[in-house]
């Protein structure tokens, strides 16, 4: 993986910190001195317990929250949401009055394109995430997993260079979650996207990632960055392998180890 790091990073974070003011007056340090790179085509996960600032970190990269200190560069063009970044949240956040294809087309509509121009691409993505036949259904008619598939398709619509996934499958049941992980792995293979994932599932992080940023809180700091060299493409069978078990054990120990 060493050769990946030498290329121009898609995300470059240096000394990021985030301090929240609280009602009682004592500021809470959510992030302290976080630095990392994500290379082109790389899959990086940010893993840690709840409250370790990992979602804050992703929101800073997405430009949804300001940083208190440090810098983050995306394509060396500065952080900020836009067509270069596709975002997926914990909830699918589909607009219930728009059909699946209208929801998937939303980033194009916002960018000023007409629905009929975006529609073919929306349709193709809907098929790619396995929702064929559901393009004209409304979100209310879809299960939680199907809604997240639609959200995944929506995040890909503008063909972003970088995909940011904020615990996107945390609300799904274990089996649906496995399916969605396979889906993401498949999308990664097909599109070669650079992906940054926030998760608290060790298995999910190991299954999907090239590198895992293991965080501890509070304040949120990087404990260690673990390279995952499991061969690709990965199928669910890999989760039963000895190597997979070794990675999950290593990471669990990192998380359990006291400061």
């Amino acid at each position, binding site marked *: 993986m060493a050769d990946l790091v030498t290329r121009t990073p898609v995300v470059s974070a240096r000394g990021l910190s985030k301090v929240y003011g609280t009602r009682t007056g004592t500021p809470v340090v959510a992030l302290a001195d976080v630095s990392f790179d994500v290379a082109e085509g790389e899959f990086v996960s940010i893993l840690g317990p709840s409250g370790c600032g990992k979602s804050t970190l992703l929101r800073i990269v997405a430009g949804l929250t300001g940083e208190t200190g440090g810098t983050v560069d995306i394509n060396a063009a500065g952080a900020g*949401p836009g067509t270069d970044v596709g975002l997926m*949240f914990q909830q699918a*956040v589909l*607009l*219930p*009055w728009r059909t699946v294809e209208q929801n998937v087309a*939303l*980033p194009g509509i*916002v960018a000023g394109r007409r629905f009929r121009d975006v529609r073919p691409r929306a349709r193709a993505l809907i098929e790619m995430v396995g929702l064929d036949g559901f393009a004209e259904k409304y979100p209310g008619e879809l299960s939680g997993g199907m809604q997240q598939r639609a959200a995944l398709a929506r995040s890909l619509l503008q063909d972003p260079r970088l995909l940011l996934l904020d615990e996107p499958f945390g609300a799904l049941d274990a089996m649906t979650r496995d399916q969605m992980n396979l889906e993401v792995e498949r999308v990664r293979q097909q599109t070669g996207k650079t992906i940054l994932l926030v998760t608290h599932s060790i298995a999910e992080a190991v299954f999907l990632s090239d590198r895992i940023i293991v965080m501890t809180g509070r304040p949120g700091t990087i404990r260690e960055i673990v390279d995952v060299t499991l061969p690709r493409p990965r199928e669910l069978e890999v989760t039963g392998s000895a190597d997979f078990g070794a990675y999950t054990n290593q990471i669990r120990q990192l998380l359990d180890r006291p400061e």
Partner: protein
Amino acid sequence: MAVSEKVLSARKLPGGAEPAERRLTARLWFPVSLVLIIVGWEVAVRVTQVNSVLVPTPLSVVQSLWRGLAQTGPASFYPHFWRTLQEVLLGFGGGVVIGLLLGGLVAISPTAQAIIRPYIVMIEAVPKIAIAPLMVVWLGFGIESKVALAVLVTFFPIFVNTVSGMRSVPAERLELMRSLRAGRALTIRLVIVPSALPFIFAGLEIAAVYAVIAAIVSEFVSGQMGLGVLILQANFRLDIATVFAILILLGLMGIGMTKLIELARKRIVFWDGN
């Protein structure tokens, strides 16, 4: 489709009647009890010797209703019904338009909020019905004073619901638009207004009822025409059966408006559960 079939079959609970049967029984309760009440009423008035002028039998109410609807001329219900309906619809329409405009303005502009809100709260504290005599002084005995009161009364539920609907958009929807770098105008059009529609429809249903109340009260105060005037006249004549007949007409007017709004809601806000 497999998904919806699963949902349907899951609804069949073991050990109970089929849902269709149960729904039919539930639907029968109302007409059956209504007939029983009406028959009981008729019998009670005849048997107990109460003054049947003061407490009319259902039969005489129906006769009054029929007389009022069948005849032409000044005693006919139609011109009065039409007049009241006009007041209600004009007042409702005006209140809805003003309520939506001001509500939308207050919801999206902090400046408008700072200027308009205190006045709204002040006016809201006054019972609008109490302004009815003032409306007559300002606008006369004609239809204008009735419409004005109906506008004033219907405006509030629309205004309040528009503001709170546009304010209570789920945060993650706004975040989604922000992540797509959507501008303010686009966010309002694509997310905020549709998200507020369920609230606005709830406001419309309240406003329709208020509009009828406002029209009748203004007619009581200064009316020359309308169902409110008819009620007063019949009351003076101690023609209580006619009073009841007009109450039925007013009820039908209210139900008609509520049903129309509900119909529109089901078409427009189809995604909203209830």
